[in-house]
């Protein structure tokens, strides 16, 4: 009840923080997709690179987020962006790489070799096999990776408030400092709802994008 009151009284600020949060996550995820998917595709051509890339992405995943933000401060202050939105985005992009790269790589690798053989045998170039056969068939698994990355980014994005990136994490940290329960609850609830809604929306997009022929 108190949480509800808080929410109503601060609705304007809640919306603002949500928008901030969403913006940081959206930018990160877009960058992560446009880096992770090509990297995932590229490493299907090069087994050695695949091992190395997946290993590095795995290591990044294991770094606690608070620590990663900490590491980023001295590195990015060289460019004058030690704290704020930029390090938050960089960290989220890095975290998103593993699920996106791994899923892209595995999905493309898992396409039935007979089907690739059929495509090649009918005279598709390597490029055509990739983009007319392998990627469309891998799309739903790639999408699963993106969804994991998005939901994860929304969660980790809350911690980015710690380095001044704003967002709903602001309420959570402030609430903890001030022992203001309604504030904590509002922040946490908003993050959770956002994650659920975005995941649902991505599910709809996935359904639109992935061929009906691939549905079980």
């Amino acid at each position, binding site marked *: 009840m108190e949480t509800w009151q808080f929410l109503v009284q601060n609705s304007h600020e809640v919306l603002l923080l949500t928008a901030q949060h969403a913006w940081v996550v959206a930018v990160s995820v877009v960058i992560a997709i446009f880096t992770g998917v090509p990297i995932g595709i590229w490493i299907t051509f090069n087994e050695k690179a695949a091992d190395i890339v997946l290993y590095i992405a795995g290591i990044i995943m294991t770094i606690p987020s608070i620590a990663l933000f900490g590491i980023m401060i001295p590195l990015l202050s060289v460019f004058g962006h030690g704290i704020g939105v930029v390090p938050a985005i960089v960290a989220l992009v890095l975290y998103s790489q593993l699920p996106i790269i791994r899923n892209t790589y595995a999905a493309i690798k898992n396409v039935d070799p007979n089907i690739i*053989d059929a495509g090649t045998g009918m005279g598709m*170039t390597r490029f055509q096999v990739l983009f007319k056969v392998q990627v469309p*068939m891998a799309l739903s698994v790639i999408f699963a990776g993106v969804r994991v990355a998005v939901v994860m980014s929304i969660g980790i994005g809350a911690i980015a408030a710690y380095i001044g990136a704003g967002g709903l994490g602001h309420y959570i940290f402030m609430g903890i400092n001030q022992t203001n329960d309604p504030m904590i609850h509002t922040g946490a609830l908003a993050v959770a709802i956002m994650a659920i809604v975005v995941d649902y929306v991505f599910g709809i997009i996935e359904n639109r994008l992935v061929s009906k*022929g691939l549905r079980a």
Partner: protein
Amino acid sequence: MITLERVTKIYPGSKVPAVDNVELQVPEGEICVLIGSSGCGKTTLMRMMNRLIPITSGTIRIGDKDITGMDVIELRRSIGYAIQQIGLFPHMTVLDNIATVPKLLGWDKPRIERRVDELLELVNLDPGVFRSRFPRELSGGQAQRIGVARAMAADPPVMLMDEPFGAIDPINREVLQDEFLKIQAKLKKTIVFVTHDIHEAVKMGEKIALLDAGRLIQYGTPEDLLTRPKNRFVKDFVGADRALKRLDLLKVKDAMRVNPVHCFDNDPGEKVLEQMIENDLNYLLVTDRESKLKGYVNLVDLRGHNGEVGDVVHPMRITVTTDRNLKEALSKMLTYDIGIVVAVDEDGRLAGVLNTRTLFSVVGETYDERGGRWGKIPANGSIL
């Protein structure tokens, strides 16, 4: 025509050639079946023809062009390709699947759509129903048909087929084989067909190439392999029942007694009876003047009957058509427990008769390895 000259494939790191010095010519418009047990090199040999596997040495020519000199993408687009596990693209509709090569070749949309409908009709699938289906919505047999249609999409003169009917139950396989042979009779493609099933080879092939350990052991017509196996290996491969396999190969028209003794339905009964008694016949086939089969009469019916034969004729229910194979005819004889079966052409005209004795003599005659003749039994003609 596909010409293979001293074609050899040695996989890197292997000392033994996978394909060893194969010389082979597939005549224009014929089906050449590559057969052998698994690992004999038949698939490797086929895949070298569209350069999915690079040739180690030797030359392959399609028409008069050496394929090594050709652009590999262009080469593959000019060859129909159908594979074992069908290999339909699951994310594409039937239309898009069949249209794969035409799209790669840059055909315009109306032309592609017309071609797809034409092909669907060719493989006996209703375009209205199947055009927009996805592969997962097809039965095994339907998927195989689409696979064949896709291979033929751009009307390639040459087709490579790797066990295209492999993953199908025996009954549907027979149906698909029959359909495919019908299509081939019209289109006359030059086809290389890989299988490990000797029955399929005998049925589909105009030529059979038997391979073992990468070497071409024997190349010839199915007749050649069954009746004149070159060595012990071929003999074992075609099987101890190779005489029975010839039943698949030979058509009713090859074995039947043509123009068998018969009478016409408007012949006078008593005269026919007289002749039957004289020739010691218990029954007699009846046709009309256009030699359409009417049935048969027997002595009992004709005795005391003084009208036309046609009045007392019994209809003949069990017949075979001349273009069916002997196995089917024999199967009918066994099923209905009849010693003789009448062969008619497609229009129901009397063509010949087949009895167990002629059947066995045909199969038996050519059983020996020297290869005998199974020439037709002399004609007899009308009884009057």
